């Protein structure tokens, strides 16, 4: 049985995180295991920092990235993606409750993003001129700074932020409009690995069909889905 190494960040709950036993867990870990079962591969998860996750894929230190990575034109230039396993999802702004932040008229604010994400690129382009864009290594670090009041707002994946806001007991709230960027989340694969991409795509198609993907989405993202049921 072929061994496939899957890289994940491990700091982006509920997509992927390190659970109390220190092992990777989360939606993508469950999904990855399901894919591998379906495609009869043996899988192994590797933790890698977000900002070097693509270079290390290229360097061949693992074969697939499943790290809540949105499919974008820019990334498609360097790597391939499987079909998405999470539909296009709006990015959202959050801020401390009652801070009165209005994202449609942001000026002179400190906007936190995770470096190297689609939100970072978006913020740099659309907000960079009038605001300070602060990029962090992980989304959790950005949240820490927001919690400590060092940021006015954070722009990140809705699917990442929703549980946080829900769990924060009113400390954080969503502000402003949703921002649509990206074409859903998929698994990143090197371009020369057409074989592997095929296997993953086939497995995903099957898993979408039998409802596994929706099931997992429902399990990890409360109240989301179903997306892939006919």
């Amino acid at each position, binding site marked *: 049985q072929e061994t496939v190494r899957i890289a994940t960040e491990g700091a982006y709950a509920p997509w992927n995180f390190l659970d109390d036993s220190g092992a990777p867990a989360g939606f993508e870990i469950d999904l990855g295991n399901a894919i591998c079962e379906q495609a009869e591969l043996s899988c192994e998860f590797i933790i890698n920092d977000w*900002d070097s996750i693509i270079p290390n894929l290229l360097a061949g230190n693992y074969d697939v990235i499943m790290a809540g990575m949105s499919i974008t034109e820019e990334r498609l230039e360097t790597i391939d993606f499987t079909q998405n396993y999470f539909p296009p999802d709006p990015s959202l702004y959050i801020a401390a409750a009652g801070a009165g932040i209005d994202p449609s008229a942001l000026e002179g604010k400190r906007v*936190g993003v995770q470096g190297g994400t689609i939100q970072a690129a978006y913020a*740099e382009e659309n907000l960079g001129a009038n605001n300070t864009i*602060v990029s962090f*290594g992980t989304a959790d670090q950005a949240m820490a*700074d927001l919690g400590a*009041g060092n940021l006015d707002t954070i722009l990140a994946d809705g699917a990442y932020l929703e549980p946080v806001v829900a769990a924060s007991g009113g400390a954080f709230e969503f502000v402003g409009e949703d921002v649509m960027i990206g074409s859903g989340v998929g698994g990143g694969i090197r371009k020369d690995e057409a074989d592997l991409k095929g296997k993953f795509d086939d497995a995903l198609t099957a898993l979408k069909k039998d409802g596994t993907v929706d099931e997992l989405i429902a399990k990890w993202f409360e109240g989301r889905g179903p997306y892939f049921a006919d």
Partner: protein
Amino acid sequence: MERFLQEIVLFAPAVVFNIYFAVASIPLGFVMAIFLALGKASDNPLISRLSRGYIYAFRGSPLFIQFFMIYSLTLSFNLAVWKPLGVSWFVLHPLFIGPLVLVLNTSAYTAEIFYGALRAVPRGEVEAACAYGMSRRQQFRQVVWPNLIRLAWPAYTNEVVFLFHATAIVYFALPVIGMQKDVMITAKELFERDYNAFLHFSVAALYFLVVSLVIFFLFGLIYKRLMRHMPAAPGMRFAPKWMR
């Protein structure tokens, strides 16, 4: 070759950040080090213990950890202290907290250098000053300090170069604001784009080397001046004794 030249131009704005970090922390670190060194050598056990402990802690732990720790520690005071004072944006800015941590760090290393030099000041010369009735202050100003700075200068030069090298990890530990990127982050991002390690890293290395050489040259000039009373000034040695 052309690639190489383009690359050099590309890095030029980045190196300004490294130079800024070094320049912002050297003077304060120097002054603080003098007090710490004197503190360590002090007869007062409390002052001596405190200085000793400080020097030990900051020399005994990695700068990388110091950055992380001090940043998150400062962050945890944000709501309670910095925010109400209205200095939050400033205190947590990498361009402030970077030099702050570097000062804390380099002052410990430099203090150890100065302390070593202090103990190496010829006892006889100090005794002579004492025997001629100089006060403590006069002794320090007229005899101890001129000796100390000369003894410490080569090692201090090394420390400055290594402080400059230490600026390379500032942005590995602190958030990056906008386009404010130093040489290392620039090299790393470029590398992550085209995977050409040899080109990007060697340009970064070249910048560090060149600035290091400039520092050696400038400090060497000062050293020559300091040592003009010696018939044959001993050459500057790149002595690794106190390096980070």
